[in-house]
């Protein structure tokens, strides 16, 4: 499949933005009291969010999970609003109520994110139902982990989406771990994609460290869904290079395994391709890196300078009150 150059650049850009964003977060986490709560990063997995979102139209929806930064940035979320939210500031995209774990960015059609493992699947089915109900040619993508595929919600969601032939694409980001549990320790099925047959729907396994492959698989599934032929289950095989969260000592992840996968890092991989195709020079890549770092620094500045929410604001947004 021929991937348009601008798509390749888009993917590279969003991967690099996510990496810069998260590297900075990792540093900020070391400063006591700077960032509230957990910090769950996707280092090494950026190709999934970037490849998926590059294949979508702006008015397609995504439903993400606890590991959402790459998904949301790739979908076009404003890094400043995300960063401020992660800091817990009033200017955050969710006014400081969410923090990092359930960032919701309706502006880019990411209307809600859930940190309940597997929770996104039934919701994405509902969003896709609305699209079909209104006879739109839009689709919904649900991004979830390999661990989530053990939850009952996975099963109910896939069955219903298949039954009603809804325009939803289930993207399982199989990073080989669910918390501290290796893939083989939480299920015996060789690949999550094999489960597609049980609903049934098309299932595909792709190299999740290759943004172009993710893009191609998503595009195909999107066409399938938008064409009224129902859902697809895509499994992106990738790897969680950092711990589950920033305090995880990763004692259960073999060092050689981490090293191996670091070599498969999706960012240099796409960069090399773009270099060898003569699309980008190393100079340009360097400038992109600078630009990303600058954008993230600006986001941090914005977050740092933003005010905390006032106490009374805690009571806002529980209910729609004009109703």
């Amino acid at each position, binding site marked *: 499949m021929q991937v348009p150059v601008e798509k390749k650049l888009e993917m590279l850009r969003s991967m690099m933005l996510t990496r810069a964003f998260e590297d900075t977060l990792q540093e900020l986490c070391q400063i006591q009291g700077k960032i509230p709560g957990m910090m769950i990063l996707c280092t090494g997995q950026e190709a999934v969010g970037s490849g998926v979102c590059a294949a979508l139209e702006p008015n397609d929806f995504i439903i993400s999970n606890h590991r959402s930064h790459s998904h949301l940035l790739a979908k076009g979320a404003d890094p400043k609003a995300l960063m401020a939210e992660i800091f817990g500031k009033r200017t955050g995209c969710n006014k400081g109520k969410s923090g990092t774990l359930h960032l919701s960015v309706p502006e880019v059609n990411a209307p809600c994110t859930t940190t309940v493992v597997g929770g996104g699947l*039934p919701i994405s089915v509902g969003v896709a*139902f609305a699209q079909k109900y209104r006879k739109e040619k839009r689709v919904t993508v649900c991004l979830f982990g390999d661990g989530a595929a053990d939850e009952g919600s996975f099963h109910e969601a896939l069955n219903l989406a298949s039954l009603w032939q809804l325009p939803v694409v289930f993207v399982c980001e199989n990073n080989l771990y669910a918390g501290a549990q290796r893939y083989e320790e939480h299920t015996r099925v060789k690949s999550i994609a094999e489960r597609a047959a049980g609903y049934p729907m098309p299932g595909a396994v792709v190299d999740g460290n290759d943004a172009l492959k993710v893009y191609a698989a998503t595009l195909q599934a999107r066409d399938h869904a938008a064409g009224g032929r129902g859902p697809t289950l895509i499994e992106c095989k990738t790897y969680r290079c950092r711990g589950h969260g920033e305090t995880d000592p990763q004692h259960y992840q073999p060092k050689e395994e981490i090293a191996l996968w670091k070599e498969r890092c999706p960012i240099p991989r796409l960069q090399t391709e773009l270099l060898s195709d003569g699309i980008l020079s190393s100079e340009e890549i360097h400038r992109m890196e600078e630009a990303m770092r600058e954008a993230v620094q600006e986001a941090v500045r914005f977050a740092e300078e933003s005010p905390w929410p006032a106490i009374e604001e805690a009571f806002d*947004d529980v209910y729609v009150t004009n*109703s």
Partner: protein
Amino acid sequence: MQQLGMGQAVQQALREEMNRDPNVFLAGEGIGVSIHFNPYLPTHGLLDEFGPDRVKDTPVSEQAIAGLAVGASVAGLRPVVEIMFNPFFTLASDMIVNHAAKLRYLSGGKSTFPMVVRIKTGAGFGAGCQHSHNLEAWVAHCPGLKVVMPSTPADAKGLLKSAIRDDNPVVFIEDMMLYFAPGPVPEEEFLIPLGKADVKREGEHVTVVTWSKMVGVALKAAAQLEEEGIHVEVVDLRTLVPLDKETILASVRRTGRLVVLHEATRTGGFAGEVCAVVTEEAFSTLKAPFRRVTGPDIPVPVSPPLERFYIPDEEKLKAAIREIL
């Protein structure tokens, strides 16, 4: 005025709102093609009338049903989904409690979830504790949800229409024993606002706060006590959340006595909330101890004499009232 059972009243509300707003759709188990074929039931006939695009029979998948509502509502539709029996709410509870109720807050007010979850509840049909288990106290303890429990056909209709038009997730709990008892329902369009209790009977000696099927029990007891010269005020909450504290407090301030009646089990039931509100805000007007008349702290048994015993009745209520007069 038309006489309808509560099932038919719910049906009319659904029909009117579906006619009014194309974004309203229904989903649930057996809401279209049903193992019952009974015009008194809430969704009877709606599949024929509105077709399979808007009346969706679902697989036996409570989590998916509730998730459907969460997703469809945030994408702009107005789902009305059904959980067949209250105990199965457990299976949908993550979607309703952790998602429907919280995702708006988590979005900082950007996303809205205008959905209704209809739940059938109540003891009295001999099916036992995995079918009969009143859990309104659970949902009433979840900020982000509204909770409605109508006691009459007219209330059910007016409240359900408001619930469907509400931009918040509303849990609407119907006691099945009320489906078949006819009551007057205005023909013309009407809405009953959520959050307003209704004084179903006035009286100055004691306030009985109750809701749902137990309102009938309270009215029966009140009529019987009237003959003894005891005047019972019956406050039907209609909506547990938002709670109409003003109406409760105004009544207790006049009567000085409070009994709360509910079918749910005693410990941790919503009676405690009503008692707390009154003891906080109208303590000085209280003339007598609080009483509650509730289901006992047991699962609902099947054996007919035991199930009858489980359900609070007018004798128990009268005894409680007499104790504090």
